[in-house]
């Protein structure tokens, strides 16, 4: 019966499971273990790729510049695309060089965790446990699930982004520049506008925290949402059988819901990449918003506009 109770909840695959708790406080959970494994896998796979991407020995001639192996080429294509097409236009040459290690590490770490969520590690362990012990406990597993479907984990990553963004802002703009940024440059404006400075300041301060909070919630909600949907779809067949629809009715519903689950799985793979990218890219955008370059760009555009007006 515990199987029925457990499986009737579509979120049972999404929520964290406590492995060890001290005095009622959870200390070790399945998603933490998954995250640590994902960290190792990220480092290991990227290290493998980097060995193929790095320039080989002189003896290889011109072939030493060629990336060997499909996996390394895949990683390289992603790195080059993110760097040249996405980050360079947003952050500029200097900031891209500086923050590329952080941003790429973030992207690949989140991506690995997202993709880990699509592989049913937890269910494999539970089934093996049930098969070998004859137990009816379908929740005996030590790792698995989507680590990024844990709001605490996405908050932790967003907190790092927050720190990086603010440290960059202070270093780039200085305290005065930071305050100017916080008031939207209204301090230099007409005196009448000073009246709305407190409002703008409050909104900007709130924005500082809302931006990373939105990062955390977006990633968390997307991961939870997708996996809850898959769980719900898979439960339809079970519900049909337990509701007494019989072999034909239950079988049809199971078939249809399985087909849909497969289709949603492809969507989930896409979402895994997309959300990892969005988390990383928005962090890059928030960093670049705290730079001088943006203002310089605005100034240049203003100069260009003036020149264009003068020219006509």
């Amino acid at each position: 019966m515990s199987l029925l109770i457990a499986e009737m909840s579509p979120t049972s695959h999404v929520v964290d499971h406590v492995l060890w708790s001290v005095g009622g406080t959870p200390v070790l959970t399945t998603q933490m273990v998954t995250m640590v494994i994902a960290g190792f896998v990220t480092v290991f796979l990227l290290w493998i790729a980097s060995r193929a991407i790095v320039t080989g020995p002189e003896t290889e001639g011109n072939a030493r510049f060629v990336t060997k192996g499909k996996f390394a080429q895949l990683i390289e294509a992603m790195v080059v695309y993110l760097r040249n097409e996405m980050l360079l236009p947003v952050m500029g040459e200097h900031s891209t060089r500086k923050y590329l290690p952080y941003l790429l590490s973030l992207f690949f770490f989140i991506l690995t965790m997202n993709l880990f969520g699509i592989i049913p590690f937890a269910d494999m362990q539970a089934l093996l446990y049930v098969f070998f012990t004859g137990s009816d406990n379908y929740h005996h597993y030590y790792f698995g699930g989507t680590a990024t479907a844990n709001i605490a984990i996405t908050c932790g990553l967003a907190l790092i982004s927050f720190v990086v963004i603010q440290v960059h802002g202070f270093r780039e703009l200085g305290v005065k520049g930071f305050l100017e940024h916080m008031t939207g440059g209204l301090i230099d404006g007409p005196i009448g506008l000073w009246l709305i400075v407190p409002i703008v300041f409050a909104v900007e301060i709130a924005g500082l925290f809302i931006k990373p909070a939105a990062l955390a919630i977006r990633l968390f909600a997307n991961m939870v949402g997708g996996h809850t949907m898959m769980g719900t779809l898979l439960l339809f067949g079970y519900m049909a059988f337990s509701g007494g629809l019989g072999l034909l009715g239950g079988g049809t519903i199971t078939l249809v819901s399985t087909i849909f689950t497969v289709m949603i799985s492809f969507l989930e793979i896409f979402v895994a990449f997309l959300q990892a990218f969005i988390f990383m890219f928005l962090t890059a955008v928030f960093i670049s918003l705290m730079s001088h370059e943006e203002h310089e760009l605005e100034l240049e555009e203003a100069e260009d506009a003036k020149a264009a007006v003068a020219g006509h």
Partner: protein
Amino acid sequence: MNPLVLAADNPAAFNWMPGVTAIVVFLIVLVVLSLFVWPKISKGLDDRNEKILSEIKSAEEAREQAKAALAEYERNLAEAREEANQMIQSARAEAKRVAEDLKAKNEAELAERLKRASHDIETAKKAAISQLHDSAADLAAAVAGKILDREVNAADQKQLVEESLKELSEHAV
């Protein structure tokens, strides 16, 4: 007792521990990747970039050099052609000049020879005439002596000779 405590079935349940672990794990991942992976990948990409750029640059340089060499070759060819033309022209002019010189010299020489020859002839003619005069005078004197059968004195003889010579030169000239 089940070793696994089922968490509250709420995905939004917040638990500090995974959050802190996330920060620690990510920072470790970041440090390891920054030390051992990203420098390698960056270097590989930069090296390749540099290699491609330098190859393009050297290819462009080679093309420029080839272009310059071709232009140089063509200029040399044109110069050589021009020089050859000039040489032909000057050789032709030289030949013409030499021929004209030769002709003029020949003509001058011919004229000189003609002049000398006529002078020689004149001299020889004069000598012959003078010899003839002498012989004729002697012969005339002897003949006249014989005819007259007397001794013509020298003064008569001379007079006679001169008369006859006068006559002779009037006829001869």
